[in-house]
């Protein structure tokens, strides 16, 4: 196990706790995924999901840069993300076990969130600022530009959509 993996693990764990997420308590399993994230960062330049085949191009992979756009829906429906790096509180406390789940990432490229046609839900000219929504965790920010890093899930600015 590399020192880099230890460091990334501690960071992910601390970030998760702060924002109400939980890493898989099976530490051997989790460390292997963290190593996978580092391997992907090294070969692609971004931490693509370890359990999906990445393209290598950042925009193509944007929806599967960890945490992926599908994590929260999978946590809601299955109690774990596709890789089972993130799990529900129940699983984190050892009351249930993470099971493999189907991949909800659309197969068609143009149905993926970064390529889907975007229309703000409503545009209200009365608003003093546009509202931006993080595609990963749903965080909303009313300001001229989306934040550089999502304060909740740490997703980058390019993963925000105009919401209102």
């Amino acid at each position, binding site marked *: 196990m590399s020192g880099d993996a230890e460091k990334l693990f501690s960071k992910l764990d601390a970030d998760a706790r702060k924002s109400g997420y939980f890493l898989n308590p099976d530490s051997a399993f989790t460390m292997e995924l963290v190593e996978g994230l580092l*391997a992907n960062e090294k070969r692609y330049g971004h931490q693509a999901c*370890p359990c999906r*085949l990445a393209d290598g191009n950042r925009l193509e992979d944007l929806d599967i840069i960890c945490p992926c756009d599908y994590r929260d829906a999978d946590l809601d429906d299955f109690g774990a993300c596709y890789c089972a790096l993130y799990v529900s509180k129940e699983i984190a406390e050892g009351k249930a076990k993470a099971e493999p789940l189907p991949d909800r990432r659309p197969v068609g490229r143009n149905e993926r969130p970064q390529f889907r046609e975007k229309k703000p839900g409503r545009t209200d000219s009365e608003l003093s600022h546009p509202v931006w929504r993080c595609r990963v965790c749903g965080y909303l920010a009313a300001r001229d530009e989306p934040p550089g890093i999502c304060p909740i899930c740490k997703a980058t600015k390019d993963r925000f959509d105009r919401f209102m």
Partner: protein
Amino acid sequence: MKFEHVDGQDRGKIVLYALSTCVWCKRTKQFLGNLGVGFDYVFVDLLQGAEKESAMAELDKWNPRRSFPTLVINGEKCIIGFKEDEIKEALR
């Protein structure tokens, strides 16, 4: 294509499409090893260019979602994901 072979009991042609970074894939590979069956596997993420494309085209025939792990048994049965019970049943 560069399949690696793991020796074991002959239960027909068992092919595992996997990713080198995916932990469910690793668990599937270990599970097959523990069952003691012979199988071939390929880490598609470690392939390049034409080899990668041909592996994905082959995988596509079995699993149009192209997800990993995908296990193909005897060119007949396909098991997608680390489903211990299904794999055990199919290889009995």
